[in-house]
């Protein structure tokens, strides 16, 4: 098992190189000349050819493409993503705190999603076809169909304005987490708990469940066996949902004025602040690779056959 983990982690390294290279290329394909962007941001009154050439030299844009890439990559490895074209501050000082804020929101939401999906999925599967099962499925269908910005606005109006129970925006206290986490989780839970439910139902018909019951094992023990076997698909989905949420909090962050990655990235895209966009894309891509590897490792722990094949 330890060996499997090390191998998986080593295998993800080449993938990270490919991703960083693609990130770099994509940004360089953009039609805007970075030198021009910098000059505009500094509000230089007249942008001459000469000025552009000078700036290109200063930014190192005249070096061969591969050199630019290796310089950037080496700097990135030391968490130095360059300086913002617009404000001149270091990218890390802008993106670091924002990343942390979004990460907090993502992790709390993911925990809520995972716990509730499993609890609801297991309970619905064990009560298949009953009123409980049907009403939970109906409710989830409704909630998943609601657009998150609408749900967010309604919840702010009801819980923050009308009842005055929770803060409308910002992240001052733990209470600030409640509304955004709820809005993010609702959509995902509605989809994921169905996954847990249906794989539980598949497992319920397996012979080992019958044999467990025929041997007089308690339902609790049998449910644990079933859960372990049915979670394998769900683990992959759960792990991939973390980077997905990380990259898709834009709407929620804007509605709740959450000082996170989503808002920063939209702002940077509008002002064509390339170093920030590059760092943003890179961080998300690394998160995808990382969580994919984590899900492989968890699945190997759950399923002995996966370990063997390696």
């Amino acid at each position, binding site marked *: 098992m330890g060996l499997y983990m090390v191998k998986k982690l080593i295998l993800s390294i080449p993938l990270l190189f490919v991703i960083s290279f693609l990130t770099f290329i994509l940004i360089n394909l953009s039609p805007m000349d970075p030198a021009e962007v910098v000059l505009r941001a500094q509000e230089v009154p007249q942008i001459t050819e000469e000025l552009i050439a000078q700036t290109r030299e200063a930014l190192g844009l005249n070096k061969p493409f591969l050199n630019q890439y290796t310089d950037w990559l080496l700097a990135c490895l030391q968490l130095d993503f360059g300086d913002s074209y617009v404000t001149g501050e270091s990218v890390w000082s802008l993106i670091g705190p924002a990343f942390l804020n979004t990460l907090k929101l993502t992790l709390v939401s993911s925990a809520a999603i995972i716990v509730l999906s499993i609890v609801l999925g297991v309970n619905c599967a064990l009560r298949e076809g009953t009123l409980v099962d049907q009403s939970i499925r109906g409710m989830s269908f409704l909630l998943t169909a609601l657009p998150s910005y609408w749900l967010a606005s309604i919840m702010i109006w009801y819980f923050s304005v009308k009842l005055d129970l929770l803060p409308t925006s910002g992240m001052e206290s733990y209470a600030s987490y409640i509304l955004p986490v709820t809005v993010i989780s609702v959509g995902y839970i509605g989809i994921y708990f169905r996954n847990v439910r249906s794989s539980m139902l598949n497992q319920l018909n397996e012979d080992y469940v019958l044999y467990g019951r025929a041997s007089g094992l308690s339902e609790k023990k049998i449910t644990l066996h079933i859960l*372990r076997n049915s979670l394998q698909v769900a683990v992959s989905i759960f792990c991939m949902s973390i980077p997905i949420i990380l990259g898709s909090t834009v709407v929620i962050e804007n509605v709740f004025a959450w000082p996170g990655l989503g808002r920063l990235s939209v702002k940077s895209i509008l002002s064509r602040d390339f170093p920030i966009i590059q760092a943003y894309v890179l961080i998300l891509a690394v998160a995808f690779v990382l969580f994919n590897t984590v899900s492989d490792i968890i699945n190997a722990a*759950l399923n*002995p056959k996966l370990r063997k094949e390696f």
Partner: protein
Amino acid sequence: MNMLEVRHLKVWDQKSHNVIIHNSSFQLKAGQCLAIVGESGSGKSVTCRSLMRLNKPGIQQSGEIVFKGEYLNQLSDKEMRKRRGRNIGMILQNGMRAFDPSSVVGVHCKETLREHFGWSKSEIEEKMTKAMERVLLKHPMELLNKYPYQLSGGMLQRLMIALALVLSPDIIIADEPTTALDTISQFEVVEQLMGLRESTGCSMLFVSHDLGVVQKIADEVLVMRHGEIVESGTTQAVFSEAQHPYTRYLVSTRRELGANFNMMMQEDNMC
């Protein structure tokens, strides 16, 4: 004395109102082996599940199931669970699928024995080792730490028998225990099942469509077709002077198919 008596067992699907078993009544005498034979879908396995009250959700049953004078159909779920494994054990058809694929096989044995006897780890290991050696499984401790996919179907079947040896229930329900096996493993498993009966003195309900095996192991036979018992009697009588045309048809066709098995059994007897 009757170990188990089934009266007017009816099993049906709640949704489609499809009747799976119409009205079955039979007895299993103490220390005897009763075989249920019949084609796939005739209701053999459903009968077994009904006896343990382990029908799939949506399947209903009525009728009386009397085990040693106790009405199993009236017991609470908790009381019924205590009978399963300890008083009425089951051996399934496909050993590969009878154990949780993500746990080593020892986990099931440990959990079962702890549930019924509350033994310590070392006690369980000691009893399992002894029983596994009885059914000719070598290196018991190693085997218990293997995953089902690392073992063969015959080995898993014998492991189920070993567990039954330790539990020593009053009745063993063997649901097509030899169907998924090749001829050699079939032979070994039948030998072990017969050994299990001898050493625990249990009654056995043996479900099969392999008449060769049935002839070897059973004292009495029930023939089922379309959810109804069409014939019953001692093995000798059913095989030699069957009344129902369906039984005569089964006996004549299956005899040819079971020839291999019979040959092996005879060779063994000669040795």
